């Protein structure tokens, strides 16, 4: 279509109406002559508007009709040339008014905010969402009816498909119930407001900091609300089930204040924007009109037809056509095995992570596959916001904060971008480890979260391979950079969500939280508030403070995964041993930590004790298993690590009592750490935890033959499954473990087994 000037366009538009008048209103011409004319269509849109009784004007119009606008009107004059099955409608530029989209700030901002120094940023690097004005809802029934009338001359297709609703949970239990509800895509700020600043949380100005805010979402029209929680229906919505982007575009444009006229000429509806300059939209006048905007219809494979697409780093087959209206992409995370140049960082898929594509009230939710790929089943116009959440049925991974504590219930959510049509078809994103970085870097937890997220999946797979019970589903994992510094890059698995805190535990839980999760100086209110939030809701904490502040070399993916495998192996142990065991286990640690807290100069040894305490056997068993599986699975995941050099070259290392590098000609550092564990070193306060025992039950090397100080290990072949099977609920000491292991395995190698346990001092 040729270029037309503004003046010419106005003339054409006017003449178009004149022509319609002539075609559709022949009788009115006579009446016009009689100056007696007042019709209007049922919309109130006047097609045949009163004209002045001006024959000169009509003649002039007739001349112009046949000349000036002939090219533009050709489709109307030659309807037979139009493919009636044509469903591709190119919307003219500026036909739809560009409107603000809620939830999306205009400017790119605050992409990499860095938290303020410790104890001054209770939000731990998160930024507040700042709202602007409320926007007119294009998906309201009334607005959708208007849009439908404009496009189709009918509003029969409009009905209530969805409800815009909000919940106001009052308690943590209510909040948890909603967050765990997979059918709800909750957001903590209204869905129909302009956003001036994007952020990670919203503080409702009408509520106190620690009051749980309203949670907004969209639900199907037949949704049955969760009983007992304050609930409001804010608006009835029509969200086109068939992704009718033309209708959505018209609705949004109308809601934004655009005005249109429409005219039916034979088989076509000519819709003209009247508040701004734009070419008319011409669509088949059928109902319902399959007039979906398809800028790249089926079979279109070239850039010429499809417009310009992003190039490079595209998922799938090179040259493969991706519908520009369908968000899809690949989500990856940097995998840093070591800080050595010989082990460069590689990108690996973020597996089975929740992806949310959202625009106004239209939401698609799905998961990445094991290759990190996602593809939306819904189409979007543009400005679709895509979030990736470390959340699936296995686990929800959140982050510690010191204020608005209820926000910790939401999984870590990374906005990977706001994408226009075309770009959204290649919405790739990589979780990167910032470099340099530190514990206050607000980007760091995203990378840690993605790494932990993958580790959960890997652990389940490895556990299945080994016949070990999987951790329970729906684990609540919290990442922390605020724990006591002596326990860096480590974790804890109290499983408070799976085994609710009992009254007898309460006096000890605060010290436990301070040690493993957050010190009081990071919390704006009292620790009681934090305890109330975390108790019964937290299963596991993974800390990402780097030992010695060495974030490049000592907070590697390998280190994070090893810690996560350790904690998840505790969770597997729980799956078999149950809550009664776990109460004893976590209470033993909590009491030791509390004792140290109350008497810093005393004998308490945090967090495990010295092995002489009542119930120390439960800890010995639990930690034996944690350390064993940590190193076995880290070895399995990374192999020999590729470390070619020494520690100071950033080689792949592991530690139990000492730091172990890979043996270039032999064992992986993780296996060396297990193999060289010495239970007879007084200096090691944890020597009573037989961290190397399960490996010695399996391996074929008698360590004593190589160094007389080592255990006499003639036992071979006890598998992970056999050892795990013995970790039953009533097995609460290392000797009990030995008895059960032998009992379950026909006293296999019983003499050597007993000797080995003896050499571990049990």
């Amino acid at each position, binding site marked *: 279509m040729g270029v037309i000037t503004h003046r010419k366009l106005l003339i054409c538009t006017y003449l178009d109406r004149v022509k319609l008048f002539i075609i559709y209103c022949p009788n009115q011409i006579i009446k016009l002559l009689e100056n007696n004319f007042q019709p209007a269509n049922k919309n109130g849109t006047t097609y045949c508007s009163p004209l002045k009784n001006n024959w000169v004007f009509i003649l002039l119009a007739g001349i112009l009709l046949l000349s000036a606008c002939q090219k533009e009107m050709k489709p109307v004059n030659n309807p037979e040339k139009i493919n009636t099955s044509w469903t591709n409608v190119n919307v003219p530029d500026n036909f739809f008014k560009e409107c603000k989209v809620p939830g999306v700030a205009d400017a790119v901002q605050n992409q990499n905010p860095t938290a303020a120094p410790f104890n001054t940023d209770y939000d731990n690097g998160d930024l507040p969402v700042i709202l602007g004005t409320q926007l007119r809802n294009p998906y309201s029934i009334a607005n959708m009816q208007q849009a439908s009338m404009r496009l189709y001359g009918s509003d029969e297709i409009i009905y209530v498909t969805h409800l815009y609703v909000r919940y106001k949970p009052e308690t943590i239990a209510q909040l948890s119930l909603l967050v765990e509800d997979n059918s709800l895509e909750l957001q903590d700020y209204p869905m129909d407001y302009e956003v001036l600043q994007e952020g990670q949380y919203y503080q409702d100005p009408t509520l106190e900091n620690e009051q749980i805010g309203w949670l907004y979402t969209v639900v199907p029209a037949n949704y049955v609300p969760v009983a007992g929680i304050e609930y409001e229906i804010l608006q009835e919505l029509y969200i086109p089930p068939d992704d009718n982007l033309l209708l959505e575009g018209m609705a949004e444009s109308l809601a934004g204040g655009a005005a249109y006229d429409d005219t039916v000429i034979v088989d076509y509806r000519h819709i003209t924007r009247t508040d701004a300059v734009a070419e008319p939209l011409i669509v088949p006048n059928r109902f319902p009109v399959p007039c979906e905007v398809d800028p790249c219809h089926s079979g279109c494979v070239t850039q010429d037809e499809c417009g310009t697409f992003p190039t490079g780093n595209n998922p799938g087959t090179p040259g493969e056509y991706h519908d520009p209206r369908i968000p899809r992409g690949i989500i990856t995370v940097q995998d840093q095995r070591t800080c050595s140049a010989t082990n460069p960082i590689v990108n690996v898929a973020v597996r089975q992570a929740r992806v949310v594509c959202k625009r106004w009230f239209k939401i698609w939710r799905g998961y990445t596959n094991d290759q990190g790929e996602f593809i939306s089943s819904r189409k979007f116009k543009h400005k679709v916001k895509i979030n990736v959440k470390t959340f699936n049925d296995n686990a929800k991974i959140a982050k510690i904060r010191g204020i608005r504590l209820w926000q910790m219930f939401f999984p870590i959510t990374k906005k990977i971008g706001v994408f226009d049509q075309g770009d959204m078809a290649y919405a790739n994103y990589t979780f990167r480890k910032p470099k340099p970085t530190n514990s206050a870097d607000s980007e760091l937890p995203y990378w840690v979260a993605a790494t932990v997220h993958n580790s959960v999946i890997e652990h389940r797979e490895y556990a299945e391979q080994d016949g070990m019970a999987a951790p329970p589903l729906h684990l609540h994992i919290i990442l922390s950079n605020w724990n006591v510094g*002596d326990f860096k890059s480590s974790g804890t698995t109290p499983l408070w969500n799976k085994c609710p805190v009992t009254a007898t535990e309460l006096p000890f839980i605060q010290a436990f939280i301070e040690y493993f999760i957050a010190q009081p100086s990071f919390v704006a209110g009292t620790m009681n508030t934090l305890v109330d939030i975390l108790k019964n809701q937290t299963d596991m904490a993974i800390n990402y403070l780097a*030992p010695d502040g060495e974030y490049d070399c000592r907070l590697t993916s390998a280190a994070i995964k090893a810690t996560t495998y350790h904690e998840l192996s505790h969770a597997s142990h729980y799956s078999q041993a149950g809550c009664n065991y776990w109460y004893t286990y976590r209470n033993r640690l909590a009491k030791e930590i509390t004792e140290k807290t109350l008497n810093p100069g005393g004998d308490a040894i945090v967090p495990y004790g010295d092995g002489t305490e009542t119930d120390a056997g439960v800890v010995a068993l639990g930690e034996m298993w944690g350390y064993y599986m940590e190193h076995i699975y880290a070895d399995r995941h990374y192999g020999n690590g590729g470390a070619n050099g020494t520690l100071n070259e950033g080689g792949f290392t592991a530690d139990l009592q000492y730091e172990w590098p890979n043996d270039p000609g032999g064992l992986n550092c993780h296996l060396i750490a297990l193999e060289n564990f010495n239970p007879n*070193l007084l200096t090691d*306060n944890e020597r009573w935890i037989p961290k190397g025992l399960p490996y010695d039950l399996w391996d074929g090397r008698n360590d004593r033959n190589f160094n007389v100080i080592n255990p006499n290990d003639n036992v071979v072949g006890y598998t992970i499954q056999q050892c795990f099977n013995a970790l039953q609920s009533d097995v609460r000491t290392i000797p009990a473990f030995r008895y059960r292991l032998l009992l379950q395995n026909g006293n296999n190698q019983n003499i050597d087994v007993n000797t080995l346990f003896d050499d571990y001092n049990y």
Partner: protein
Amino acid sequence: MTTIIKYSRNVLLIIAVQSFLFFGCNKDGTTPCQNGGYSFVVSSQYSPQQDIYQVGDTIYFTSQFPKTLVDQINNSSVNYSNSVGIQGDIGFGYLDTITHQPIAARDSFTIFSIKGSFSERPGNQNVGLNFNYFENAENYEFQAAFVCKKRGIYTIGVSDLLSEGLQGENCTNAGFNLSLANTNQHLYLHQYVLNVDTTDQELQQKVYDFRVQ
């Protein structure tokens, strides 16, 4: 009343926690860090180096290293003074040619500490002892004398060393990779009696074999 009690309890607990956080690292102690601390490389030596000793001969075990060491993790120099204690584990084995097994044999030697000290190891005490370094102005040092009492083929093995940290400084725990500086460890005896692979890294770094006749 209940509120006051709760409040008081909370205040006390917070004070206690702060005390723990700020004074837990007292001047006489240290708290090791998980996944933290240092990794050093040090050496030791047996002398005189010979593969056959006579009953009554003395074998000296010496290990000495400066207090300023290079941390193998980040390749930086560390002043490791005022350790709460650097300890290793040393064991004595009789290599039994009949059973082809090592048998605990601390009782085949009379053991003296010359620099540093010994302490009983938690496990089988006839295997050996824990040994503790002495800190002087410049070095950490351990020296011991083992007087041979019985004939036979023997092995002495040591562990790596461990320090829980520096006095008054948390997260300064350290592992010391202790290797032998002897040019000949007579590992053929290990191969002869136990038929093991003498290229084993642990064997090469930690074990010294000899005959007593």
